[in-house]
C-alpha cells in the first residue's frame, strides 16, 4: 500500500496539470472574447461605450436621451453599457464607431480585459461560457469552483447549507449526549457517595439505641412494648426515611447472624414491631427481581416463617436468583423440608443452586425429615442427579435401594453420579451395575465405572477389566484399568505387567507405583 502512494500522488498531479487552462488560449481573438461576453450578459466592473466621431454623427442620435451623448474632443461618447448582450446590436447601429472597454470606469484595451478576466477566472468569479458548453469532464472542473458570494450574504449561506446544518446538528447532539452521559455518571457517583455517607451516619444513630434495647429488655418486655415506644428510641425525624429503615434492616440482620438464643428472638420481635416486615412483604411483591430477592434474603435471615406462602410463589420463578433464594428460604424455614418444590422445578438445577441447597440441607437434615427419595421421581434430570448426590453427601445408605429404581432409565450423567455415590458409600453389593458400565460406550461413564471398580469391584470386575485391557488401545483407559487392577488385586496386576512387559506398560506401572503420584 505504501509503495502505491507516490504513484497516486503523480496521478493527482497529472490531473491538476491537465485541468489548468489559461484564458489567453481560450479567446483566440477579440471577436471570441466579445462573443463570450455577450453570452455572459454582465461581468462585474467591466463595461463598454462607443466613441462617435463628428463625421458619422446624426441629429437623431444627438436627440436620443437613451444614448446620453457627451461631447469630447473630435466627437461624442455614448453612456456606459453593462449589458454585454446588447453589444452586437449597438455595434451594428454604430457600425463606424469605435467601441471602448471600461474597467472600473476607466478605458482599457483587449489585453487589459483578458488580464482582468484571468484574475476573475482564477478566483472562481468568472467562468467562460465555452467552458460550460464543453463535455461533462469540464463540467466537473467547473463545479469545483464555488460561486462567488459577497460577504454580506454569508448569513444566508449558513442557513441554506443543509449539509452543514446536518453536521452541526449531529455534532451538537453528540456533544450533548457526551456531556449528558458524563454528567449523569458524575451525579450518580456524587449521589452514591452522599448515600454512603448517610448510611454511615444512620448506622451510628442506630447501633447505640439498638444494642441498649437488646441488652436492657427481655424478650417478654419487648413483646409487651408498643411499636410507638420502640420507634421512639430512634431519632424521630429519621425513622420515616426509607434509607434509614434500609440501614436498620441491614443492621438487625447483621446482628441476627452473629447472635444466638434469646437475642435472635428479640431481634425478630424488633423487626416485626418496627414494621420492617412490611418492607419485606413489599419487596416480595415487587416486579423487580432484585427487590424480590432482597425480600427473600430478609425472610430467610430473620426466620419470618409467616411469609412462607409468599415465598412459595417464587420457587419456580423464571429468574435464577429469585428461585434460588426462594428455594433456600423454603429449605431453611419450612417445617417439613420435604423438597417438593424441587421435585416440580421446571428449570435445570445449576451447581450453584445445588451448592447452596446442600449447605442448608446438611444443616437441617438432623432435625427435619427430608424426602430425598421423592426427588428420584422428578421429571427434571438435574433434580434427580442432585438427589443422588444428596444420598452420597448425607451418607444415606438406606436410599441405595431407591437409587436402584432409577438405574434402568438412567441417563449418562445420572449413571456417572450413581457410580460416584456407590463409590462414596462403598456399595460393594452394586457391582453388577458397576461391571455393566465398564464396557459402556460412553467414555465418561466407562472411566467412572473403571475407577469405581478398582475400589469396590469384585472378581467379575477383575475379569472384565483384564478383558478390556486386551481389547482397548486407548492409553488413558489402559492406565485407568491398570490402576484399578492394582487396587483390586495387586498380585494379578504385577503378573500381568511381567507377562506384558512392553515399554508402555512398564511406564504405566512406574507411574502407578510412584509414591509422588499417588491419588492423582
Amino acid at each position, binding site marked *: 500500500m505504501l509503495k502505491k502512494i507516490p504513484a497516486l500522488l503523480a496521478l*493527482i*498531479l497529472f490531473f491538476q496539470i491537465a485541468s489548468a487552462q489559461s484564458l489567453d488560449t481560450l479567446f483566440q481573438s477579440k471577436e471570441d472574447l466579445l462573443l463570450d461576453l455577450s453570452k455572459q450578459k454582465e461581468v462585474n466592473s467591466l463595461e463598454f461605450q462607443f466613441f462617435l466621431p463628428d463625421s458619422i454623427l446624426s441629429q437623431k442620435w444627438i436627440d436620443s436621451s437613451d444614448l446620453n451623448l457627451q461631447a469630447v474632443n473630435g466627437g461624442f461618447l455614448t453612456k456606459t453599457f453593462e449589458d454585454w448582450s446588447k453589444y452586437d446590436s449597438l455595434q451594428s447601429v454604430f457600425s463606424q464607431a469605435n467601441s471602448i472597454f471600461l474597467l472600473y470606469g476607466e478605458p482599457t484595451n483587449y489585453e487589459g480585459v483578458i488580464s482582468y478576466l484571468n484574475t476573475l477566472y482564477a478566483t472562481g468569479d468568472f467562468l467562460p461560457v465555452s467552458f460550460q458548453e464543453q463535455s461533462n469532464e469540464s463540467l466537473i*472542473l467547473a463545479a*469545483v469552483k464555488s460561486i462567488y458570494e459577497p460577504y454580506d450574504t454569508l448569513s444566508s449561506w449558513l442557513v441554506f447549507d443543509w449539509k452543514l446544518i446536518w453536521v*452541526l446538528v*449531529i455534532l451538537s447532539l453528540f456533544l450533548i449526549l457526551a456531556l449528558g*452521559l458524563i454528567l449523569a455518571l458524575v451525579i450518580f457517583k456524587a449521589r452514591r457517595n452522599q448515600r454512603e455517607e448517610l448510611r454511615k451516619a444512620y448506622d451510628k444513630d442506630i447501633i447505640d439505641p439498638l444494642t441498649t434495647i437488646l441488652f436492657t429488655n427481655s424478650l417478654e418486655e419487648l413483646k409487651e412494648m408498643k411499636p410507638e415506644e420502640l420507634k421512639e428510641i430512634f431519632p424521630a425525624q429519621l425513622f420515616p426515611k426509607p434509607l434509614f429503615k434500609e440501614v436498620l434492616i441491614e443492621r438487625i440482620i447483621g446482628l441476627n447472624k452473629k447472635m444466638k438464643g434469646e437475642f435472635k428472638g428479640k431481634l425478630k420481635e424488633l423487626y416485626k414491631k418496627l414494621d420492617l416486615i412490611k418492607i419485606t412483604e413489599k419487596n416480595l411483591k415487587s416486579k423487580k427481581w432484585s427487590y424480590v430477592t432482597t425480600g427473600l434474603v430478609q425472610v430467610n435471615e430473620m426466620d419470618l416463617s409467616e411469609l412462607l406462602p409468599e415465598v412459595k410463589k417464587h420457587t419456580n420463578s423464571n429468574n435464577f436468583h429469585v428461585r434460588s433464594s426462594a428455594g433456600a428460604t423454603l429449605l431453611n424455614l419450612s417445617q417439613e423440608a420435604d423438597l417438593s418444590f424441587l421435585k416440580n422445578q421446571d*428449570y435445570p438445577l445449576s451447581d450453584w443452586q445445588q*451448592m447452596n441447597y446442600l449447605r442448608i440441607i446438611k444443616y437441617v437434615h438432623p432435625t427435619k425429615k427430608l424426602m430425598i427419595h421423592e426427588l428420584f421421581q422428578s421429571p427434571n434430570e438435574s433434580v434427580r442427579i442432585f438427589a443422588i448426590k444428596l444420598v452420597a453427601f448425607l451418607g444415606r445408605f438406606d436410599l441405595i435401594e431407591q437409587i436402584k429404581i432409577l438405574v434402568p432409565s438412567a441417563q449418562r450423567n445420572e449413571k456417572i453420579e450413581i457410580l460416584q455415590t456407590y463409590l462414596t458409600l462403598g456399595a460393594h453389593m452394586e457391582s453388577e451395575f458397576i461391571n455393566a458400565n465398564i464396557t459402556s460406550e460412553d467414555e465418561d461413564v466407562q472411566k467412572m465405572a473403571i475407577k469405581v471398580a478398582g475400589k469396590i469391584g469384585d472378581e467379575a470386575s477383575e475379569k472384565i477389566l483384564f478383558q478390556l485391557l486386551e481389547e482397548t488401545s486407548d492409553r*488413558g483407559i489402559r492406565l485407568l484399568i491398570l490402576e484399578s487392577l492394582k487396587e483390586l488385586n495387586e498380585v494379578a496386576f504385577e503378573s500381568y505387567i511381567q507377562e506384558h512387559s512392553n515399554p508402555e506398560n512398564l511406564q504405566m506401572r512406574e507411574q502407578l507405583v510412584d509414591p509422588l503420584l499417588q491419588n492423582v
Partner: protein
Amino acid sequence: MYNFLFYLLIDVFGVIFMILSFSVVTLYLLIMILSALEMRDFRRKNRFADYQDIITSPIAPGVSILAPAFNEESNIVQNVKSLLALHYGKFEVVIINDGSKDQTLNRLIEAFELKKTSFFYQSQIETAPVRGVYRSENKSFRRLWVIDKENGGKADALNAGINISTMEILACIDVDCILASDSITRMVRPFMEETNKKVVAVGGAIGIANNCDVKDGTVTKYRVPKSRIGKFQVVEYCRAFLMGRMAWSRINGLMLISGAFGFFKKDLVMAVGGYFPKTVGEDMELVVRLRRYLEERDIPYRVAFVPDPLCWTEVPEDEKVLGRQRNRWMRGTIETLQLHNKVGYNSRFRVLGLVSYPFWSIFEKMGPILEISGLIYTLILLLIGDFSAVYFFSLILMIYFLSLLVSAFSILYEQIAYNNYKDKNDLRSLIRTILLEPLFIHPKVVLWGLKGHIDFIAGRGGWGKMIRAGFKTAEDRKNLDTQSTTS
C-alpha cells in the same frame, strides 16, 4: 474519462468514510449502553452471591491453574507461592517450564523440594517433547505440578499443561500475574450458574500493577503508572475490560478472553484440540474455535466475563516493547480471523458470524488501515482543492469527542464500580491522559497496528501456506496436528 473516474472515486470514498465514521460513533455509543446494563446486572447479582461456600463445597468444580514459564528465574518462586496460597478447595497449580535457558527449573526444584516423577505423559494434544514431570515430597506443596519441556511457545506449553491437568476447569494464566486470593471462587461462579446454556469459558478483567503496592500477592494500594505510556494503558484496559468485554458479554459475542487470565471447560478444550501453537493470537483463536465448535453442533452456550479486579499484570512502559506487543496482537487478530473466515458474515454462526466477526474484521483488524486511508484521502482532497475545512474539522471534533466520551466513561465506570484509583492526583493524571491520548498515543497505536499488517503480509511471525486457507471446521486443528506429525 480518467478525470471523471477519479472524481467518482473521490465521491465514493467520501461516502464510505462518512458511513464508517458514523458507524464508529453509533457502535461505541451502543457499547457504552450495553456495558452499563451488563455492569448494573452484574453488580446486582453479586449482592446475592455468597462465595464462602465454594471454597469447601464438594459440588464446586476442580480447577487446574496452568502457568507457562519461560526464563522467569527472578520471580518464579514468589509467583508460584502466591498461586499456591489462593483460597479454594479443589485446585492444582501446573507450572510449565517451556525450555527456559535460565535457572527457572532449578529455582523451582530447590524452593518446593521437587523430585522427578515417573509420570506417564500422554500427548492427547500434540506438544514439544516433555523432559520430565516434577512433584514435591512436601505435603504443603501437594497441589503443585511442574512440567519441564522443550521450548515450543506459550500455546504449546499450555497444551502440555492441559494434557497433565486433572481438574475439570482450566485456568490459563501468565505466571507473572498477580491473582486476588478469591479469584478462583469468583471466576468459577459463571460455570456453576450454568443452566440451559453451557458456559464454555469465562474471561477476567486485568488490572495494571505498575507503580501499585503489592503485599502477599495482592494489590493493596492502587496508583497509576508514572509514564504516559503506562497511564494510557490504564485507560485502555478500563475501556477494554469494563466497557468492551462487558458489552460483548451482554450479547454473548465475546471473541477474546485474555491469555493472561482465562478459565475454560477442559472437556471442550480437549474436544477442539487445545491451543493452536502456530498463531501468536492463541487466546483469541481458542475462544473462536470453541464457539465455532458449539455453533456447528447447535449446542447452546455462553462465554462469560467477570469484571471484578482479580488479576493484575505489569504492562510495558517502553514504547518499543509496547509496539512489539501491539504488533503481535494485530497479527494474532488477523491470523484468527483468517483461520476462521468461514464464520464471518455467516448467519449459521449467529452473533459470532454476524456481529462479532464483522466488528473485529472492520474495526479491529482494518482499523489502522482505514485510519491511514482516511488521512491519505484528506491529503488528496487538499491537493485537488476539494477540501472542506468545515466538514473536516467537524468530523475530527466529533471523533475526538467520541474518544473523550468513551475514555471518560470507562474511567468513571471504574470509579463507580470499584473506585480503585482513590487519589485525586491519579484521577487528574488519568483525565490528562484521556485528553492527550488521541493526539499523541493513538497515532502510534495505529502505526504499530499497521506494522502488524505489514509483518503479517511479509510472513514475519506467520505460519505456513496450508493453514492460511483456514479451518473448515472447528476440529480441523486436531487434523492439522495429525498431518504435521505424520508427514
